């Protein structure tokens, strides 16, 4: 279920962020409890709690005492901005490096992007 690339709590946090970005989890919607999460993924509740603590620290989730954890109003917007900042470094620069390494001319990529722009109504 989890790879060994990063700590499990980091992966849990990433999954919840992905759910928010995809729109599966909405603003002010309650997320599963740490115990539900732990039982579902067969992980220690303390590990799940670490993931949630991370999200609260980053302002992605907020806590209602005695009730549970909810998605922050501006979580999606903030996550999008952060991911947009990383996009050029992590996705575009990495793609350019890969293309150079295996000999794909950048012009070919640009053509393909143009075609994608034409096909995909945005």
């Amino acid at each position, binding site marked *: 279920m989890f790879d*060994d690339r*990063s*700590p499990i709590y980091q992966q849990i946090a990433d999954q919840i962020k992905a759910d928010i970005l995809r729109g599966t989890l909405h603003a002010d919607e309650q997320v599963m409890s740490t115990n*539900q999460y*732990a039982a579902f993924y*067969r*992980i220690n*509740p303390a*590990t799940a709690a670490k993931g949630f603590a991370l999200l609260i620290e980053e302002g992605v989730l907020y806590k209602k005492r005695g009730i549970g954890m909810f998605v922050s109003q501006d979580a999606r917007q903030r996550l999008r901005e952060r991911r947009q900042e990383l996009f050029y470094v992590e996705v575009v620069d990495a793609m350019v490096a890969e293309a150079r390494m295996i000999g794909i001319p950048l012009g070919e990529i640009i053509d393909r992007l143009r075609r994608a722009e034409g096909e995909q109504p945005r």
Partner: protein
Amino acid sequence: MLVDGEDPFENPRTAAGTCFIRDEPDLVPSTVDRVLRFAGRFRPTWDHTYAQALAARFGLSPDKRVGALSRGMKSALGVTIGPASRAPLTIFDESYLGMDAPARYTFYEELIADYGRHPRTVLLSSHLIEEVDALFEQVLILDGGRLLLHEDTDVLRARGQTVTGPAEAVDRFVASLTVVGEKRLGGTKAVTVYGELAEDRRRQARAEGLDLGPISVQDLFVHLTREQGSPR
């Protein structure tokens, strides 16, 4: 070893709060239902409804005789008694023996869910490290009866890594590190190191074209115990 600050050997005070499930559970020769009732009689914290639900999940019928149970089903009865006892200290000593993979996963799921509802101390020993390491908050590694280490699982996981790349560059990089294992494939070398790597060292590794990879608790366990020269 102390339980609650006391020597647990033949100690009625600590025994009442301890549930110990061995690899071959101690079962009175009777039916599943009566074994469960019998186990509950010694436990002030026993939850009989939960015991029955767990037994049903493992496919244990109440009127089945314990003597007729397979090895795996006997273990399943053991790991029914363990969680249902709700004892402040519950010990599972390789209690999974003979259980097939789906039954073991049911056990882990139930254990974690019940632990979430009723937090308490659970000690679980296992040789199947890969399938249980995510359950643990802390890990103790025993080797030949000796305590090799006791660490937070996450800390332990962060301690080990593999360094892979051209043999020469790898050797240079790991010269000052604790190497617990190495493999070679042609000009490529993969070395497992034990110890935390500071961020500047990680950057240095990347700059030298070396791949840093995580290592599983199981691999770490293999490396840490193999090097000690203990008999297998």
